[in-house]
Structures are given as structure tokens and as C-alpha cells.
């Protein structure tokens, strides 16, 4: 049985850990709220953009943008995988990687090669061990992400699609269901299929300035970028939620441990006192 002093130091150390996990929990909670706000702030842009693209698709333009063209034969696919920069957020990243690996395996079985584009430090650390085809990477984005930080990474993949290097492009990120649940999802980014929508039936003949090609180029690139950006922002919200939950359970566990140790400590103290008394009594009797 460990002595009183050892138990006391152990309790003190667990209490320190608990303080840290509690602080992290609260920080994550407040950051999560902000990330959620940011998440909803990004919605109008891509919604509006989707509308414009829908209109343009209906406006009978003779120009077919490369992003809208489906490559009939698939020889190489691209994956954009979004992960967090920091750990201590439960199984969030591992779940993302698992679903990414599953999707990748399905392609590999068809002898399709895979190019990776990694956003976030954890993804880089994980995939650099198992894949040689990392074509673009970005990490240490912080909690407030600027779209300008993602442009280069996304452009690498978009260029690859335009040049015909890759035939499909997917995005893997976490969906923010609620605070308790984050679900990894795999989205097809390219080829882009404009949604058929009844509301779009009335169409206009647009004037394009400078011309249809230039405008569509800009529009579609920005659209894909905004989808990736949204994914990354959503992933941040997921990260914060997952961290909050992980830290909450860590704090709870620390509390339980402390309670157990406190009990052991009390028992040890009691035992020591009893022993001392019986020694004194024994000593007095001997005299």
C-alpha cells in the first residue's frame, strides 16, 4: 500500500491536470460558438454562387467549362483531406482518416492512383507515412481561416483536373451535426454537376463581360474554393466541439480518480494513526 505522502502528491498532480483540462474545455466551448457563427456566415456566399451558376448553366452558353466536363475514364483521382492542426480532440481526426482511407481503398481496388492534398498538420503527419503522392499541403491555419490561405492548395488540384492529370476530385471533412456528433463525409467536388431546379426554369440571356469563358472561369474556381473553405471552417467547429467533449470527459475522469485516491489516502492515514496508537498502548503495557 502506498504511503500517505505518495498519495498526496498523486492527488495534487491529478488536480493540476484537471485544472488544465477544465480550462481547455471552456476555451473550446467559447471557440466553438465563434466557429459556428463563422460557419453560418459562409453560407450565403456559396448559396448565391450556386444560384448564379445554375442560371448560367440554363442560359445556354455554348462554352463548356473544363470543371463541368466529366472524364469518361478514371485513372487518377484527387482527395482534399481536411484535418485539425492540434490534437486532444478525441477521435475526430482518426474518424476522418478512416473514412478517407476507405474511399481511397475503393479506388485502389480499381487500380486507380491517388493524389492527396492535405489541409491541417495532423493529416500531413498521418498521410506522409503511407502515401507518396502528396501534391499540396497547408497547415497551421489557426482558428480564423482566411480564404487566401487556401487558394494555392486548391488551385493545385483544380489545375490538375483541367490538365487531365486527375479525373475526379473529392473533399473529406467533418460534418457538424451537433455538439455531440461530428460525422466525416466525402464530397465530390469535380466534375461539377449543376443542380436541376424548378426555380431556375426561367432563364435570361446574359450579357457577359468580358466574355462567357472568363466569367465562368472565375466563377467556378471561386465556387470550388468557397466549398473547400466552408469545409475547413466547418471542420474547425467540429474540432472545437470534439475537444470540448474530450476535455469534459477528461475532467470528469480526473474527478473520479481524485475521489478514489482521496479515499485511499484517508484509509492510509487512519491505518497509520491506529498503528501508532496500538504501538503506544503496547509500549505502555510493556513498561
Amino acid at each position, binding site marked *: 500500500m502506498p504511503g500517505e505522502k505518495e498519495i498526496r502528491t498523486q492527488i495534487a498532480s491529478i488536480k493540476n491536470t484537471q485544472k488544465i483540462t477544465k480550462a481547455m474545455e471552456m476555451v473550446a466551448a467559447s471557440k466553438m460558438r465563434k466557429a459556428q457563427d463563422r460557419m453560418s456566415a459562409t453560407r450565403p456566399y456559396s448559396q448565391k454562387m450556386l444560384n448564379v451558376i445554375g442560371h448560367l448553366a440554363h442560359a445556354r452558353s455554348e462554352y463548356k467549362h473544363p470543371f463541368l466536363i466529366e472524364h469518361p475514364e478514371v485513372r487518377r483521382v484527387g482527395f482534399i483531406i481536411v484535418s485539425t492542426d492540434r490534437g486532444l480532440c478525441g477521435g475526430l481526426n482518426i474518424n476522418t482518416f478512416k473514412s478517407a482511407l476507405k474511399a481511397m481503398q475503393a479506388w485502389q481496388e480499381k487500380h486507380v492512383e491517388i493524389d492527396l492534398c492535405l489541409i491541417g498538420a495532423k493529416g500531413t503527419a498521418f498521410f506522409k507515412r503511407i502515401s507518396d503522392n502528396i501534391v499540396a499541403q497547408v497547415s497551421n491555419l489557426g482558428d480564423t481561416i482566411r*480564404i487566401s490561405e487556401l487558394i494555392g492548395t486548391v488551385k493545385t488540384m483544380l489545375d490538375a483536373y483541367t490538365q487531365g492529370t486527375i479525373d475526379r476530385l473529392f473533399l473529406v471533412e467533418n460534418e457538424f451535426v451537433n455538439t455531440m456528433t461530428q460525422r466525416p463525409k466525402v464530397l465530390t467536388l469535380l466534375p461539377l454537376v449543376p443542380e436541376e431546379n424548378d426555380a431556375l426554369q426561367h432563364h435570361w440571356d446574359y450579357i457577359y463581360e468580358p466574355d462567357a469563358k472568363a*466569367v465562368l472561369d472565375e466563377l467556378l474556381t471561386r465556387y470550388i474554393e468557397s466549398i473547400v473553405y466552408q469545409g475547413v471552417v466547418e471542420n474547425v467547429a467540429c474540432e472545437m466541439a470534439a475537444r470540448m467533449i474530450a476535455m469534459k470527459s477528461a475532467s470528469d475522469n480526473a474527478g473520479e480518480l481524485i475521489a478514489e485516491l482521496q479515499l485511499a489516502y484517508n484509509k492510509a492515514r487512519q491505518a497509520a494513526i491506529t498503528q501508532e496508537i496500538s504501538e503506544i498502548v503496547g509500549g505502555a503495557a510493556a513498561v
Partner: protein
Amino acid sequence: MAMTLHLDVVSAEKEIFSGTVSAVFAPAKMGDVGIYPRHTPLVTSLRPGELKIEVEGQEDQYLYVSGGILEVQPHVVTVLSDTAIRAEDLDEAKALEAKQRAEDALKDRKGDLDAAKAQAELVRAAEQLRMIQRMRKQRR
């Protein structure tokens, strides 16, 4: 009733403006355009510049856009504003950077990144400890 049109200005990061206005003036790529209600449908890209919004009975509002897309439908105008400064060669440089980072990440596959970071922190902690010990000695 005065003729009005609905204007939405959004960027990828947030919604900037939404409301009923009487006219919009935008810096389009081929020259500035003024949009009044019932303008013919138009899609154009924007260059960086000032977006002037006229609302009846109110002072004109000015917004800065660093490029983007302007879409005009008969009664709805949408400005998809960029937040980043865009240029073809600037984007290209960013793409190259992203590729470079990927190569760097692959290169130090053997030297584990986390291990290296931990080691650096260990060295710093040891240095701090030594400092504290020295200070204690001096005090005695």
C-alpha cells in the same frame, strides 16, 4: 412608387450587405457600370475598387471590393465579393508554395516532425531549469 432593386453583397467569409436600393455603381473589368432597376441581365467580373450604393432618402454608401463577380437580374443584383487580392501570377505563386510544403513534409518523413518539436521543447526546458538553478545559487 419609386423603382428599386434588391442588392446582395456577399463574400466567402461573411454577408456584407443585403437590402433594397435604388442604384448600384460597380467597378467592372471593362469599365465602371451603373445598375438601375430593370437593367438587362449581365454577368461580369469586377476589378478592385469602390462599390457605390444609392438608397433613396439616405446617404450613399461605399464598400470596398477587391474584385469578384457581379450578376444582374431584372430586379436582383448579386455581388460576389472577393476577400483576397487575386491575380493570376499571385495564385500561381501560392500554388507553388503549397506544392513546396508538400515536398518538405515528405522529405522529413524519417525525422519525425513531432519528435523534433518535442526535442526542441526539451532543450528549452532544460535551459530554463539551468537558469533557475543558477539564480538559486547566487541567492545563497
